[in-house]
C-alpha cells in the first residue's frame, strides 16, 4: 500500500496545542486555557486538540472528546517529549526545562509568566529569548489577546546549545587532556 494511511492523514490535519506547567502548579494558566473563550479561539485558529499537563494544580478540567474538539488532561508523565513532538503549538510556564525542550523541537512557543511567584526570575529568561525572537511571552491576562493576534511563523529557529563546550572545559579542569 502506498501513501499515508487514513489515520495518519487525519493526525496531520488535526492540529493540536500542548500546555505544560512543569512540576509545580499554575492554576491560573490551567483555568485560562481551558476556559470557553480560549477553546473558542483555538478552534477558530484550526486547532482540534488541547493536551493539558497540570502538575500539582488544584484546577482540574474534565477531559472530553467531541467530533470537533478534544481536551486531554493529565498531571505528570516521565517525559513530555512525545507530547511536545506531536503538538503544533506549545503554551508553557516559564520553566527553563520546558522552554528549552519546546524550542529544541522547533515548536512555536508561547510562555505564560506566573505573576504570583515572589522571586520571578523566570521572567528574565522568557524576556531574553523573546528579545532574540525565539518565543512569545505574556501573562494569563494577556494570553487570549496574544493568541488572537500572533503570527507564529515570525519566530526564529532556536540553535542547539553546546554542552560539548562544557565537557571540553571540564576535561581541562580535572586534567583529562586530549
Amino acid at each position, binding site marked *: 500500500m502506498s501513501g499515508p494511511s487514513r489515520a495518519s492523514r487525519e493526525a496531520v490535519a488535526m492540529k493540536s496545542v500542548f500546555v505544560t506547567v512543569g512540576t509545580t502548579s499554575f492554576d491560573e494558566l490551567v483555568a485560562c486555557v481551558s476556559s470557553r473563550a480560549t477553546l473558542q479561539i483555538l478552534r477558530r485558529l484550526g486547532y482540534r486538540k488541547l493536551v493539558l499537563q497540570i502538575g500539582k494544580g488544584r484546577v482540574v478540567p474534565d477531559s472530553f472528546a467531541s467530533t470537533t474538539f478534544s481536551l486531554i488532561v493529565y498531571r505528570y508523565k*516521565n517525559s513530555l517529549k512525545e507530547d511536545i513532538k506531536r503538538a503544533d503549538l506549545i503554551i508553557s510556564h516559564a520553566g527553563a526545562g520546558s522552554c*528549552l*525542550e519546546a524550542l529544541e523541537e522547533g515548536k512555536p512557543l508561547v510562555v505564560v509568566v506566573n505573576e504570583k511567584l515572589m522571586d520571578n526570575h523566570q521572567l528574565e529568561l522568557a524576556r531574553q529569548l523573546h528579545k532574540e525572537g525565539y518565543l512569545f511571552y505574556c501573562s494569563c491576562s494577556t494570553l487570549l489577546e496574544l493568541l488572537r493576534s500572533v503570527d507564529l511563523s515570525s519566530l526564529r529557529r532556536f540553535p542547539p546549545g553546546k554542552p560539548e563546550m562544557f565537557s571540553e572545559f571540564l576535561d581541562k*579542569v580535572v*586534567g583529562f587532556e586530549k
Partner: protein
Amino acid sequence: MNFFFCLIAVGGVAVFVVLRLWLVVGFRRKGLKTVSVRVLVVAGSGGHTTEILRLLGSLSKDYNPRHYVFADTDKMSAVKIRLFEEKRAERDSESLYTTHRVPRSREVQQSWSSSVFTTLYAVCYSLPLTFRLKPDLVLCNGPGTCVPICASALLLGILGIKKVIIVYVESICRVETLSLSGKILYHFSDYFIVQWPALKGKYPKSVYLGRIV
C-alpha cells in the same frame, strides 16, 4: 588567665581556618592523576535537574561514578535521573551511579530568615554524606541544596582530607542576576560558569562558554 587561653585558642583556630580556606579556594590544583573522576551532582527541583542532566550527558565515561543528591520533596528528579542513567548504562556497562536524599534547604517561596534554620538542618545531613562520598568534583547549578553540599566539600579541603573541585553552573534562567546560591558560591567555587554575556560582564571571575544546555 583561663579566659586568655581560651581567647588565644579560639583565635588560633580561626586563623588556621581562614588560612586553609584561602589555600583551598585560592589555589586550583590542575592535573589530577586519577583515571576516573568521582562526581557529586547536586540535582533537585524540576528545571535544575533537567539542566544538569544535559550537562552530564556531554561528559565522557571517565566521570564515574556519579552520586546524585536531591531534595527529599522532589519526586520528579528521581525519575529523571533514573531514566538518564538507564540510557547511559545501555551504552556503557561500567557506568555507576547512586542517589541520596537530603532535606530541602529552601522551598521556592520560603522567607530568607527561616531559610537560615532549614539550611543549617540541611547541613547536618549534607556533611556526613559529603565526607563519606569524598568526591573529586562537585557539580551544581543552583538549587538551594547545593550550598550545604559545597560548604561540606569545602570543609573537606580545609581539614586537609581532600581537595574537592567545586564547579558551579548558573542556570540558563539567570540572564542578568545571579541566584541566591550563585551569589554565595561565586566566592567559594573553583569554577563559576555563567550562560549569558551580561552576567560575565558583572562577575569578572566567572567563565562564559556560550549556552551549554
